[in-house]
C-alpha cells in the first residue's frame, strides 16, 4: 500500500475489551484521506476509547490499525512519536497545561519540536489564536477560561503544527451557538483549505450532519451503520433510526442494566 492511497486509516477486525467487558468486537472501519469522518454512537460505546486506539494510547487485543498503510502496533516509540507529530488532537476537556498561559500552551508543540525563532512562534501562535477568536486571551491562564474557551484554545494548539490528521473528541459540547457555528465552519474550512483529514467524535447529530462527509454509527462494539449523514437519516435500521431521531424506545436501552424497578423499590431484592 503506498502512502498516497485513498484510505488514510484502516481498522481491521479490531477487538478490545477492558476487564471482562468487551468494548469492540470485529470492528471494521475506514477513514478516507481529505474527508471529515464522524464517529457517532450512544454514550458509553467507547468512542473516546476508539480514538485512543487509533493514536495507540491503547493497544487492541486483536486486529490491526493501519495508518498510511503502516500497522501502528509495529512502530517503535520513536516512530510512534514521529507519527503523532502529524496528528492534532482536541481532548474532550481541552487538557490545557495548567502551569502555562494560553499563549504558551499553543506555543508548546512548536517549542518542543521546532527551532523557530521567538518572533516566528509569536506570529504563528497569534494567527491560530485569532482563528479561534481568542487572540485577546493570550495572556490568560487556563484556570481563568470558561470550558468553551479552553476547548477553543485547545483547538488552536491542536492545529498549530499544521497536522495531517485532526482528531476532535466531542468538539461541540459546551459551546454557545455562536462559537459552535464558528467552530463548525472552522473545522470544515481547515479540512478543505489545508487538505487535512478530520475525525470527529460526537453524539450531536445535528451539528455532525452539517459538517461530516461520512459518518459511522457505532453501537454494541460494532459499526451499526455508515454513510453520508443523509443516508444515515433515511436508513432502515432500527438502531440508526432511534439514534438519529433521538427516540427513547428502540434497541438501544436508555437504562443501564438494573434489577426490577418495582421489586427494588419495595426492597424485595434485599430479602
Amino acid at each position, binding site marked *: 500500500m503506498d502512502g498516497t492511497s485513498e484510505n488514510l486509516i484502516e481498522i481491521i477486525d479490531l477487538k478490545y475489551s477492558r476487564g471482562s467487558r468487551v468494548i469492540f468486537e470485529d470492528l471494521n472501519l475506514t477513514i478516507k484521506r481529505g474527508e471529515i469522518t464522524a464517529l457517532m454512537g450512544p454514550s458509553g460505546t467507547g468512542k473516546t476509547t476508539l480514538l485512543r486506539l487509533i493514536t495507540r494510547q491503547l493497544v487492541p487485543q486483536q486486529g490491526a490499525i493501519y495508518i498510511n498503510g503502516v500497522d501502528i502496533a509495529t512502530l517503535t516509540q520513536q516512530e510512534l512519536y514521529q507519527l503523532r507529530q502529524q496528528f492534532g488532537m482536541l481532548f*474532550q476537556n481541552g*487538557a490545557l*497545561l*495548567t502551569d502555562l498561559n494560553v499563549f504558551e500552551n499553543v506555543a508548546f508543540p512548536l517549542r518542543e519540536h521546532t527551532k523557530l525563532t521567538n518572533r516566528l512562534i509569536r506570529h504563528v501562535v497569534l494567527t491560530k489564536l485569532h482563528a479561534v477568536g481568542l487572540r485577546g486571551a493570550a495572556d490568560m491562564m487556563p484556570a481563568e477560561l470558561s470550558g468553551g474557551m479552553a476547548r477553543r484554545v485547545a483547538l488552536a494548539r491542536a492545529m498549530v*503544527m499544521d497536522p495531517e490528521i485532526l482528531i476532535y473528541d466531542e468538539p461541540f459540547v459546551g459551546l454557545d451557538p455562536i462559537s459552535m457555528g464558528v467552530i463548525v465552519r472552522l473545522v470544515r474550512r481547515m479540512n478543505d483549505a489545508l487538505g487535512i483529514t478530520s475525525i470527529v467524535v460526537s453524539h450531536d447529530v445535528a451539528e455532525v450532519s452539517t459538517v461530516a462527509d461520512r459518518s459511522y454509527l457505532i453501537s454494541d462494539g460494532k459499526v451499526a451503520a455508515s454513510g453520508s449523514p443523509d443516508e444515515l437519516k433515511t436508513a432502515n435500521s432500527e438502531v440508526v433510526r432511534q439514534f438519529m431521531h433521538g427516540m427513547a424506545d428502540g434497541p438501544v436501552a436508555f437504562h443501564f442494566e438494573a434489577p426490577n424497578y418495582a421489586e427494588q423499590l419495595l426492597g424485595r431484592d434485599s430479602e
Partner: protein
Amino acid sequence: MRALIRDTYDTVHEFVRTFGAFQLFFLRLLRHSPRIVMRRPGLVVTQIYNSGALSLVIIMVCGFFVGGVLGLQGYSNLARFNAEDSVGAVVALALLKELGPVITALLFAGRAGTALSSEIGLMKATDQLSAMEMMAVNPVRRILVPRFLGGVVAMPFLVAIFTCIGLFGAHIVSVDLLGVDVGAFWQQMQASVDINDVREGVIKSFVFGVVVSLLAVWEGYNAIPTAEGVGRATTRTVVISAIAVLILDFMITAVML
C-alpha cells in the same frame, strides 16, 4: 490454610512486581536525565526553585527550633555532669549526622513531595499527560525528570541550610540565653566534629533527596486519575517517604560507623 498461603503469595508477588517496576522507573528517569540537563536546564532550574526555594521558610523555621531545643536539652542534661560547655559539640554532631538530613527529608516529603505527587496526579487526571503524549512529547522526560532532578539538587542545600540555622538556634539558646561560654561552645564543636561526620550528613542528604523525589514522582505518575486517587497518592508519598527515610537512615548509619 491454603487461602492464607495464596494470599501471602499474592502479596509478596505484588510487592516484588511493584518494586521491580519502581526500579525500572528509576532507571528510566536516569536515562533521560543527561539530555534534559544538557538541553533544557531551564526546566530543572524552575523545579529547583519550586522544590527548594519554596521550602526554605519551613526548613529555616523548623531548623531554628530544632537547634534551639537541642541547645536547651543539651544544656540541662550536660549540666548534671558539669559538661555544659560540650553543648556545641553535641548539637553539631546531632544535626550534622542525624537530625539535619532526617528532619529535612521528612519536611521535604511533606512540603515538596506532596506538591509533586498531587501536581503530577492532577495532570494525569485532567488528560494533560495524555495530551503531551499526543503532541509527541514524552511526559516522563518533559514533566517527571525535571521534577525529580529539582528535588535531588535541592535536598543537600536544604539540609545544609537546616543544619546552619539549627546551630544558630542552639547558639542563641545556650550561649545567649543560658550563658554557656561562647569560646567553649565553638572550640568544643571544632574539636569533636571531623570531616567524616560532615561526609555522613552529605551522603544521607543526597540519598534522601533521591528517594523522596523519586517516590513523589512515582506516586503522582501512578496515581489513579480521580480526585480520590490523587489524594491517596499524596498521602502515600508522605507515609512511604517517612518510612523509607528512617529505614535508610538506620542502614547508612550502620554501614558508616
